[in-house]
């Protein structure tokens, strides 16, 4: 496949199509509109399904119907739209239905703004919907990685019967970068024997896509089953990237677009002889807790940089477990931190300024 200069949102849509996404249900909201727009043209051409739903609530429930029927299915949204989807996401998690949900994050709370932010970390990683459940959350940092993680998201969803979030932001959605859209090579997946295909000529019992357990003991058992499954995911699926951590006096933890900004700051600091490391969680859920602890072993302190008031920092603090200071730098509301701001912050931490 040819490398092309492609917008993040379009790349995510193309990646999904290449991964065999059969249905897309969505609703317009900035800054992810290129995804439904692209899908509305391409999916019907391929004989696949695109529906612009009447609401985000409906979109996620159409996802439920298609996922329960065994199809590869995706929806995408941002900010207020993601909040509306949380009801359905909880039901999908409860019913163990695999699907891919793309969130191109913008500033909040409320209507907030349309500029890039990372303020939906809690919502994606800690729940968002009601009840005891976890999602898998991938956080791409480049357009190429958005392609790869979108495709991986479909695989992980099918492998474990779990909704998977691709957590991007307005920068990644809107920027263009060279990327190659490949057709993923996937390991064999379990057959979807649970899907509501209609019974047909088989002798099986009815399949039910369901999250209702009125008996508390049965519900408890179900929740513990979900938790055990997530333990297996934690064991096998954590992804994390390390940059220059060996001799770093300060290790920065950042994900997505912010990690790119930190890399720019690191380049400037390196020229001045200051060694800074970067740990970039690629899976935000499950979170690379042990990996971060290990990566920061030799550092004096840790700096978390986010486009929020500081949400991931909670998980980093759990990872560091009080062993050393964990500091924070962030901008909010759609203001993108400058590399030079991160440089200044690190110098401040070193006591140079």
């Amino acid at each position, binding site marked *: 496949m040819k490398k092309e200069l492609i917008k993040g949102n379009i790349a995510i849509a193309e990646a999904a199509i290449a991964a065999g996404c059969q249905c897309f249900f969505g609703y317009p909201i900035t800054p992810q509109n290129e995804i439904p727009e692209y899908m509305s043209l391409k999916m019907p051409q391929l004989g696949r399904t695109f529906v612009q739903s009447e609401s985000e609530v409906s*979109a996620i429930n159409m996802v*439920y119907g298609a996922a329960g029927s065994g199809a590869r299915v995706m929806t995408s949204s941002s900010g207020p739209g993601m909040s509306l989807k949380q009801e359905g996401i909880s039901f999908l998690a409860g019913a163990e239905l695999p699907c891919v949900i793309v969130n191109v994050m913008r500033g909040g709370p409320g209507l907030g703004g349309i500029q890039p932010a990372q303020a939906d970390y809690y919502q994606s990683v800690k729940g968002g919907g009601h009840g005891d459940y976890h999602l898998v959350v991938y956080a791409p940092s480049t357009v190429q990685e958005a392609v790869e993680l979108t495709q991986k998201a479909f695989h992980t969803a099918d492998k474990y019967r779990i909704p998977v979030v691709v957590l991007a932001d307005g920068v990644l959605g809107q920027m263009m970068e060279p990327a190659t859209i490949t057709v993923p090579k996937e390991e064999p997946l379990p057959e979807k024997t649970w899907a509501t295909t*209609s019974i047909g000529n088989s002798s099986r019992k009815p399949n039910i896509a369901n999250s209702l357990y009125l008996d508390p003991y049965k519900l408890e058992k179900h929740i513990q089953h979900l938790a055990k499954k997530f333990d297996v995911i934690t064991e096998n699926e954590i992804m994390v990237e390390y940059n220059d951590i060996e001799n770093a006096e300060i290790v920065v933890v950042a994900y997505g677009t912010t990690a790119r900004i930190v890399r720019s700051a690191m380049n400037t600091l390196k020229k001045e002889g200051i060694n800074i490391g970067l740990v970039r969680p690629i899976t935000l859920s499950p979170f690379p807790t042990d990996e971060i602890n290990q990566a920061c072993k030799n550092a004096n302190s840790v700096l978390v940089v986010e486009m929020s008031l500081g949400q991931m920092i909670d998980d980093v603090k759990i990872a560091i477990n009080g062993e050393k200071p964990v500091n924070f730098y962030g901008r909010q509301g759609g203001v993108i931190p400058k590399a030079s701001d991160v440089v200044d912050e690190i110098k401040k931490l070193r006591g140079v300024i």
Partner: protein
Amino acid sequence: MKQVFKKTTMLTDKPFTYCPGCTHGIIHRLVAEVLEELGIGQDTIGVAPVGCAVMCYEFFNCDMHVSAHGRAPAIATGIKRVYPDKIVFTYQGDGDLASIGTAETIHVAARGENLTTIFINNAIYGMTGGQMAPTTLMEQKTTTSPTGRSESLGGNPIKMSEILATIDGVCYVERTSVHNPQHIIATKKAIKKAFQNQIDNKGYSIVEVLSNCPTNWGMSPQQSLVWMEENMIPVYPLGVKKEVK
């Protein structure tokens, strides 16, 4: 001995959990018999609502989805888009279809999805304990309209069949009742037509079935059937509201 009657194969052996005198059981049986008689049971996927009938996923002998409140039409859309050749139906109550899921109801109709909806209107929220429904009658007492439904506090009853009949993409709308055997037979006929339309690829069909709730109405089953005829039918007139031939 010659067998003259047997239970439809489209109901499981699980006993109904509905209150004594509730007509959900009758309507379940009608739907199940229609699925069997049309020979489509094996190809059917149903969607259960939130409300008393959420348990119907244990009663219908076919693949089922259990939906979030009001979302059954969206879920059914998802299923039908994956399996356009299968029979997909939703079974929804009044709170589900006419209140929390109004948007889903209107838009599944506007898209003309080739689906069948069985809409149970008993003018009250049964499962949650007798609160006011969008279809609760004026002056009707419920646990959230304790002095009777008034326009200023509770608004007016909503007539979904009449509304849906105005929407392009809807193929068939009929309101029926199950307060006596004659109307039960008519209801079955309507349900059969609504499924036949789907087999014939005609678009969205809905049958609104006036139903009872003796428990939350505070009546005996018999009283409730009389109440339906005397109070509900005048507000919700029976008949075909739309039919595209």
